[in-house]
């Protein structure tokens, strides 16, 4: 394990950015989101959760796929280049790292999504343990340990030092690149990190959602959950906005659209939201015609369809962003609890 004093972090960022792109939590107009490091960027490692998850680094909200350029009777097609440069995402939390594992299941399965795969190949994730977890967090429910993030490099911020432990080959390579700025950690440092992990885990035990039960939510629960009359009640306050889906680290649905450039077409894809009325709109129309159906889709996907197709893996990681951001205060925890309550009442 290595360490670096907090005040030397800007030197670390500068050094990384010399050879590759660096994404990290940046504060802009009072909000923290992952962005590209620049000398004048206000890096914020103290805010636990970025508003948007860092999934943009691998799966951007909007990206061009190819451009058609029309010249007289000729059409030229220019495919968008795949990511070819290395980059680092610094400061991801354990839940968001697990979010990337979820995205991997979707985009790296056959047929492989080449845009995503290129980013995964070139990206190195430096994760940070969650110093002070918050009441909206429930990663523990999904077996995630926010005290020990599983990434290329795991880091802990303890008493003015960032502790650095590489866990993979990519992590080793990055560590080598920045070795000149890192000091070796001694036994006393190791102890500090162990204490920090214990402190984090003891807080996690006390979080209000940590004991949430997922009993009954699995790939076999399809008919029972799908046909429940509860959805008719639960969806009602939903405004049908896309907040939950756009701040979510695992929502992976996208739409492909054409943009008329005046002299051709730009074909791009952008995140879609199952909350939107034209979600999965096809030539024959839309197969989900009511907001109840769209609302149900989101939770069924995360807790039933996804585990059914991915060896039981849920596509929720308990980051709690939807808990914090839903304008109507709806969220996946309330859904799980409502079903649990109904089960108990029977």
């Amino acid at each position, binding site marked *: 394990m290595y360490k670096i004093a907090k005040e030397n972090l800007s030197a670390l960022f500068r050094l990384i950015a010399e050879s590759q792109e660096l994404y990290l939590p940046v504060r802009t107009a009072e909000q923290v989101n992952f962005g590209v490091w620049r000398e004048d960027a206000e890096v914020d490692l103290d805010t636990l959760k970025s508003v948007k998850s860092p999934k943009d680094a691998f799966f951007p909200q*909007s990206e061009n796929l190819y451009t058609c350029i029309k010249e007289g009777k000729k059409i030229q097609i220019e495919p968008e280049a795949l990511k070819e440069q290395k980059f680092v995402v610094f400061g991801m939390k354990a839940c968001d790292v697990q979010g990337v594992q979820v995205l991997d299941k979707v985009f790296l399965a056959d047929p492989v999504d080449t845009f995503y795969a290129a980013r995964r190949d070139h990206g190195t994730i430096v994760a940070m343990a969650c110093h*002070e977890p918050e*009441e909206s967090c429930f990663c523990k429910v999904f077996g995630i340990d926010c005290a020990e993030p599983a990434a290329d490099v795991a880091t802990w911020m303890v008493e003015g030092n960032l502790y650095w432990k590489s866990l993979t080959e990519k992590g080793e390579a990055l560590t080598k690149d920045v070795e000149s700025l890192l000091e070796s950690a001694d036994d006393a440092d190791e102890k500090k990190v162990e204490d920090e992990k214990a402190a984090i885990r003891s807080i996690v035990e006390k*979080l209000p959602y940590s004991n949430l039960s997922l009993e009954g939510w699995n790939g076999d629960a399809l008919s029972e959950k799908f046909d429940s009359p509860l959805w008719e009640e639960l969806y009602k306050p939903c*405004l049908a*906005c896309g907040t939950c889906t756009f701040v979510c680290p695992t929502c992976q649905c996208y*739409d492909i659209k054409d943009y*008329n450039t005046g002299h051709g077409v730009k074909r791009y894809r952008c995140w879609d*939201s199952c909350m939107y009325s034209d979600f999965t709109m096809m030539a024959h129309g839309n197969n989900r015609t009511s907001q109840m159906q769209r609302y149900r889709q989101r939770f069924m996907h995360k807790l039933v369809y996804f585990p059914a197709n991915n060896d039981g893996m849920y596509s929720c990681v308990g980051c709690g962003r939807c808990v914090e951001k839903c304008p*109507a205060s709806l969220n996946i925890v309330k859904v799980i609890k409502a079903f649990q309550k109904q089960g108990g009442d029977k």
Partner: protein
Amino acid sequence: MQEVINRAKELLADGTVARVLGWKAGDLPYNPEPAYFESVESLEDFVYNGFCGANLSKYMIEASKLEGKTMVCLKPCDTYSFNQLIKEHRVDRDKAYIVGVGCKGKLDIEKIRKQGVKGIESIKGAEITDEADNLTIQTLYGEKTCSYADAMLERCHVCKGKEHKIYDEIIGESKDTKDADRFTEVARIEAMSPEEKFAFFQKELSKCIRCNACRNVCPACSCRKCVFDSNKFDSAQKANVDSFEEKMFHIIRAFHVAGRCTDCGECSRVCPQGIPLHLFNRKFIKDINEFYGDFQAGEDTEARGPLTDFTFDDVEPGIVGERG
């Protein structure tokens, strides 16, 4: 709160209303959700406290299509939205039994978090009956206090007053929490150079994630199908095609609600990125006041809107150019 529940029970029991539209207790101290209650028993979960900021007027568009009357709980500022929706024939007055609920300013959890409060276990002082000036917040990282006023939504600092503009009955006392002028920030931006203005809005609007929460919560945005949801245009509602579009979406929306926006502040309350969207609307309101005389949308259901009316005293459109 108990009084509202008792009244709701009576109205449900005697058949005056078929349902009650209010707020249901959440599972955290600050996340009650808008909810319909159809039985006396279900009212057990009814809650009305400082975190019930959601304006329920817009939900009445759908409720107006249901069988029977809906008892709806409206705070003073929510009643402006309801009036405006009546004027636009979007809600049915006869389908609503309006209980004007008292309000002493609503709380913004984001403002509490901004003060460094995290790991919230309980919040004392947010009940409607609480007289304390401070919130006492128990957290996993110790007890914190925070003044009620500092935790209020921006819109409550420019409160329109404690009067309900439309109601069938009023339950509870309200307080005028205004301690700022709503045009101060607009005037500050007006005084900026074009470059500064552009930089300000560019910085704020570049955070937009196109979740459409501002549009969907807005009582003035009640089109059955929004132009941004149409697949016949290049204006996708899901992503900003370029940095031009992210601005245009909000500017077009502000133009569309101009003269009808009551300044209820819901757009800014729900924005996950904390964009002060109300500033666009307030700029229009300020201009309308200056051009056509003071006008408050939703004050009543009859007055003609300044942009849908014509008098010979109206300013010429050229004034925009003249003002520079």
